[in-house]
């Protein structure tokens, strides 16, 4: 704390909680005593008639006593106050001088600051080589919205000392800032008519804080914190100016509300009647106020603790800017006020009530609509962290390292882990909407099929824990509604609320779906739109909307569900390979799991936190593009894939497979932190794709890879076989002559007896169904009737 104070130069003598209403000090106005102390918010600015507007966000609810220079000292504290006054006089002059200097500095900042590297979306239309904030003033004169948002980072880049003052003494410096802006503005646009004077709203104070790290030193400082809005109060009208009228002579007077208290005039100044002044509510001036509860974002939380909350007050036009559920960055002044146990007692609780007075809101998820919030996410990493990550990326075996760090408790399945790794990185998002082709999916979807007990669930659980926006759901329990969105009625407000399901919640993340095969067809069909278009359309209870669901899907199923979706980029089969060497390695791995200590394990594998950061960094900062060679390699790969099947009249690749290859290659380039997709990336994508196909689409009867298994859920030979069985059955029935009805079991036994190949009950049923489709027969219960 001491260090902070001593570094603030001229403002040094100021205590952390300056008890004075320094807003009342106008730099131009050297006659300190001519001010009306009861009206703290009047500055002398060349605003030519534009009214100043109170800034409750800077000066609301101050508990510290005012050093009142004009009125009589309060009894009981007389001696102390006189001393204070003398000392504070000197202080006042020192501060006034400091603020004067800051004023000049701020004007220079506004006139001169140029930010050629600006990447912010809101500055798109501005000329980057001209002073940024002068252009914004131009904008204000056109639009008429008297608010100037100032990035604190800019102030810091311009003058570090000024920035420090802004952060440490916002209550004094921001009004000075206001004055500086208004002077400039009305000099430039003397005829402008604004609703009120321009208010400066600084944001992104570099001291962006996690709620957990707030401490007493931050009180009365300008701080940016991030979190999630969990509750907003009703609008609270807060009286700013009370209007009194004498009931005898109708003389009226206004009284400013000072820190929540109204000094009710006891005597009418006009007719001298005592206690005749009555408050007239509808002529008093109120300002809007709202209480907002902010909760720590789940990502910032240490494990095993509950999230902290903070109270934020929003004033005037910031009221109703945020809704529960929004993720926001709030810039404001952190306040603490002591609590009195009882107004009639001198005893106070030794606890302070803390809150933020919001000056600026910035929704973090709003920007996600336009893409990822790069600026914000990048800041999560310190330079050292980025250096470590880059160092790791430069290692030739980074791909292998990362994939082996994934779910180390699960044995082998290296290709599957590699596939999931690529899924975690994702492809590059491409936007062709201008040419009318819409967005191309960048997310990679993976399906794991396998025998029960091959740790599929464990793998899913691991991925779910690794990614920040992961959702875990089981096909068994989830309905289409639970996956997409549903409408509920809020019990309190009777308002219809759209509740989003797992798929929407995992936007930009991974949705893990266990027991995919147990999902009803109806539910699964919902996934079609999500997996290809990455959006979700909802028409429910009069609410029609399209939500983003740019989610990767990692599904697990027991062997071969009826219709496999071709929308999966990779389908892996997790089987139990049964050979001795494998068994030995597996046993060793499992036993090791039980006797190794935690430290040993950590040494062996990459830390989960590093892996998380690595993925997050690559996802936000690397967006590789195809190089010329890579494109060629992809074309060749695709042509080769098509060729394989063509000899046997089978299609072995569709354009979808090409897209998958591109995505996988891009993801692999991301693993290397490379901005270019190169041939090696394509090679790995090809290899992985082929491995996955080999596992899942090999026709068990012919040994060939048959892509139609993926598209129809059945290989070409199996389809042929099904027809053969149906024909054999038909022949059998025809041989039986004119019997209108047959016993089901009898028929099955006959067919089995006659056929050379083994006929299962499933095959028999399928054949019956095929014949029923031809309108040849119907099956009712245990009898088969001919038509």
């Amino acid at each position, binding site marked *: 704390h001491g260090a902070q104070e001593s570094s603030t130069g001229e403002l040094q003598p100021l*205590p952390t909680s300056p008890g004075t209403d320094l807003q009342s000090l106008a730099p131009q106005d050297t006659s300190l005593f001519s001010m009306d102390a009861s009206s703290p918010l009047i500055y002398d600015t060349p605003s030519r008639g534009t009214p100043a507007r109170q800034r409750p966000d800077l000066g609301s*609810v101050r*508990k510290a*006593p005012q050093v009142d220079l004009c009125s009589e000292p309060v009894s*009981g504290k007389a001696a102390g106050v006189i001393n204070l006054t003398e000392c504070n006089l000197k202080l006042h002059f020192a501060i006034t001088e400091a603020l004067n200097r800051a004023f000049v500095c701020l004007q220079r900042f506004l006139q001169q600051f140029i930010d050629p590297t600006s990447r912010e979306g809101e500055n798109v239309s501005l000329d980057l080589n001209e002073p940024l904030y002068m252009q914004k003033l131009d904008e204000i004169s056109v639009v008429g919205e008297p608010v100037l948002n100032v990035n604190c980072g800019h102030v810091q880049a311009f003058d570090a000392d000024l920035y420090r003052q802004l952060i440490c003494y916002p209550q004094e410096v921001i009004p000075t800032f206001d004055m500086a802006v208004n002077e400039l503005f009305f000099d430039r646009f003397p005829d402008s008519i604004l609703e009120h004077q321009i208010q400066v709203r600084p944001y992104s104070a570099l001291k962006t804080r996690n709620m957990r790290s707030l401490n*007493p030193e931050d009180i009365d400082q300008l701080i940016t914190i991030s979190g999630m809005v*969990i509750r907003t109060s009703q609008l*609270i009208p*807060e009286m700013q100016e009370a209007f009194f009228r004498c009931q005898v002579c109708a003389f009226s007077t206004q009284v400013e509300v000072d820190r*929540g208290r109204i000094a009710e005039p006891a005597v009418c100044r006009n007719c001298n009647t005592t206690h005749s002044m009555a408050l007239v509510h509808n002529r008093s001036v109120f300002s809007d106020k709202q209480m907002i*509860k902010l*909760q720590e974002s*789940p990502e910032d*939380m*240490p*494990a*095993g*603790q*509950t*999230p902290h*909350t903070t109270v934020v007050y929003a004033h005037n036009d910031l009221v109703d800017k945020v809704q529960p559920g929004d993720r926001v960055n709030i810039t404001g002044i952190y306040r603490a*006020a*002591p*609590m009195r*146990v*009882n*107004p009639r*007692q*001198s*005893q*106070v609780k*030794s*606890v*302070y*009530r*803390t*809150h933020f007075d919001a000056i600026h809101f910035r929704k973090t998820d709003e920007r996600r609509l336009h893409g990822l919030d790069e600026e914000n996410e990048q800041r999560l990493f310190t330079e050292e962290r980025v250096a470590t990550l880059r160092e790791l990326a430069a290692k030739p075996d980074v791909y292998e390292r990362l994939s082996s760090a994934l*779910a*180390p*408790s699960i044995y082998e399945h290296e290709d599957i882990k590699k596939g999931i790794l690529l899924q975690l990185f994702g492809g590059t998002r491409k936007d062709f909407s201008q040419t009318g082709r819409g967005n191309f999916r960048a997310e990679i979807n993976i399906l794991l099929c396998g025998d029960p*007990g091959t*740790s599929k*669930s*464990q793998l899913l*659980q*691991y991925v779910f*824990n690794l990614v920040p926006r992961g959702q875990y759901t*089981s096909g068994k*329990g989830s309905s289409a509604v639970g996956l997409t969105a549903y409408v509920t009625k809020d019990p309190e407000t009777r308002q219809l609320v759209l509740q989003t399901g797992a798929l929407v919640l995992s936007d930009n993340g991974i949705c893990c779906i266990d027991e995919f095969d147990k999902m009803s067809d109806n539910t699964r069909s919902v996934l079609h739109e999500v997996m290809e278009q990455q959006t979700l359309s909802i028409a429910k209870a009069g609410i029609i909307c399209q939500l983003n669901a740019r989610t990767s899907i990692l599904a697990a199923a027991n062997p071969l569900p009826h219709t496999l979706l071709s929308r999966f980029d990779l389908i892996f089969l997790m089987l*139990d390979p049964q050979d*001795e060497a494998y*068994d*030995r390695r*597996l*046993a*060793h791995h499992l*036993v*090791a799991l*039980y006797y190794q200590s935690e430290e040993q394990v950590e040494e062996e594998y990459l830390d*989960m936190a590093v892996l998380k950061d690595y993925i997050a960094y690559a996802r936000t900062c690397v967006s590789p593009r195809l190089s010329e060679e890579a494109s060629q390699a992809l074309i060749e790969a695709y042509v080769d894939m098509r060729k394989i099947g063509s000899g046997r009249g089978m299609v072995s690749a569709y354009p979808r497979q090409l897209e998958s290859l591109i995505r996988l290659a891009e993801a692999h380039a991301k693993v290397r932190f490379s901005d270019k997709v190169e041939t090696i990336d394509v090679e790995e994508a090809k290899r992985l794709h082929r491995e996955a196909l080999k596992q899942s689409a090999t026709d068990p009867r012919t040994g060939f890879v048959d892509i139609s298994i993926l598209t129809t859920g059945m290989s070409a030979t199996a389809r042929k076989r099904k027809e053969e069985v149906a024909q054999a059955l038909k022949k059998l029935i025809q041989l039986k002559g004119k019997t209108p009805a047959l016993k089901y079991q009898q028929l099955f036994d006959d067919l089995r007896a006659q056929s050379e190949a083994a006929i299962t009950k499933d095959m028999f049923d399928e054949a019956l169904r095929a014949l029923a489709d031809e309108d040849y027969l119907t099956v009712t219960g245990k009898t088969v009737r001919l038509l």
Partner: protein
Amino acid sequence: MPSSEDWINNPLGVVDGIFAQSKLSPEWERKVLEYFKEKLKLNDAKSWVPSLNDVPLHYLKPNSLVKFRCMVQDMFDPEFFMGAYETVDPSTNSKELRCGKYKDVTDCGQVDFNSRNIVTSERQTFYCVPIPGESQWVKESYACSSQARVVPSTSYTPHRHKRSYEEDDDMDMPHQKESSSGPQNLPDPRRNVDSKRLETEAPCQNASSSHCSSNLDLNFPLPGERGPACLVKVYEEWDSFRLNDMLEVFGVLSVDPALSFIADDKEVSSLLDPTDTMETAEEQRAHSPPASLVPRLHVLYAQPLQHNNPLLPSAISEDKAFLSGFLSELNSVRGELLTYLTHVLLGDALAAEYLILHLISSVYARRDVLPLGKFTLNISGCPHNSSYTEQLCQIIQHLMPSSYRLCMSLHNMNNLPMVPRKDYTANRLVGGILQLASNTSLFLDETQLEQGQLDATGVRNITALGNLISWQKVDYDFSYHQMEFPCNINVLIASEGRSLLPCDSQVHLRPTVSPPNVEEYLKAIQLAQLPSHLNKYRVYLTVARLLDYSISEQVTKAVEEDFVEMRKDNPQSISAEDLHRMLVVARLLSLSYGQTTLSRDGWIKAKQLEMVRTSRTQQQECVNGNEP
């Protein structure tokens, strides 16, 4: 007991003394902590401190040192408070520097808010409740071992009031001076316990009814629980505490009525402090409940508890003498316990063997998402129509320090709040049944489940139970998102057929005796057990769970060989999952014999045990036919 126990009766005096000596140097805080740590280290000094668990609040002296055995149920936001402040005496105008630490309210005198000497400090509040599901014998045993003399002090304290919280229904009234403080008898600690009888009632009979006579919900995770809840103020290293930690805290008791949220006063105070009106009444009620009901405890020393077994020293791993003493008789105790449980399980020795393994299991590590060491047991084939499961659960309650029986009736599944949920209006975590401390025994009675429809809550509850068993974690509901809290709960499922929940191991009960009246049979068995025997079992079960364990290089090799060998004959016979389970069984079996390393013998025994169990399960499936 030395007579001048100022540090117990007047800890704040000690603190103020050290503070005054320090002359504002920050050293004093450390000195205070060291002072109390030293004091508590002395021979059984801890037992001299009265405990909130077994002494009714109104017998305790305000601002004295008390202890509390509890679980962290919720963590509130950090508070800023005046660590040091200056008061002005209006008559003499003299200023005095005072210490604000370990206090809720400033001392008399006008506080000078402009003083440069005000030090703002930070502390964190935890909402603590008695350990959920703590067995009666644990409470009684702790209460008996307490040597605290709870002397209703002759020195008159104006804020004390003498009704216990149960009868206290007019606590909203500001407490006036109680002039009728006549001489009181020395309360016997045992009688205290009786007077407030902390019993856990079976929830299936009485699931939804609240036992609080007051309208204030004390937010106990389990229905039907009683006991003091407490707002524990932590001053040091609060980041090291986790939700659901078991703690023993020593701190200054603060019951100042000024702390209570008083609805009537709200109007008045709001004029003074407009921020007051912003908090909802629910929030104030949750965060500043009447101090007579939820006292404040300012922590001077806090100790995380490894276990809550009163028969063992609290730091068991450090007490080598106790450990080696017990290890010598461990095997005989095991034998007796096995016989006892065999009788209880109607003569089924195998099931008894597995029940022991289950009772000493504990999650000892996690590999990424995989919890190691958990051993969920499903005892199937339980008689359906008798009260057998209920009695079985009671027997387990008599053995384990904390446990809870959850009847999986359709009504309970559809209605009971299982997963803790954040109530944003009151800004607190509303407890659910699955908010339990480590090593609590959760007895799921599936025999109570009937046919019918589960609604959305029911499905969520079943999923939560499944997650608890598979991953040993509970996803708390924070409305906008879920948050995962790892746990360590021993789940035992009693069912007729195979349980619908996933479990690590299933034993089908095969009774060898069929008593005509199961109830009386079990009662007779229980009566036959001497209390000293029961105590031995209790010590045994806790000790076996806390032992260290390792596998030597040699045995590792043997196990690997064995696995390969078994797979060679028949790959279907053993999967990776089976090996996982066998390794856990081998671990638990060794520990149950007090062996801290796996021997070849131990491995073979474990294998045989598993073989007998699986063959029995297979036979059972053959009998039933239709079970998969």
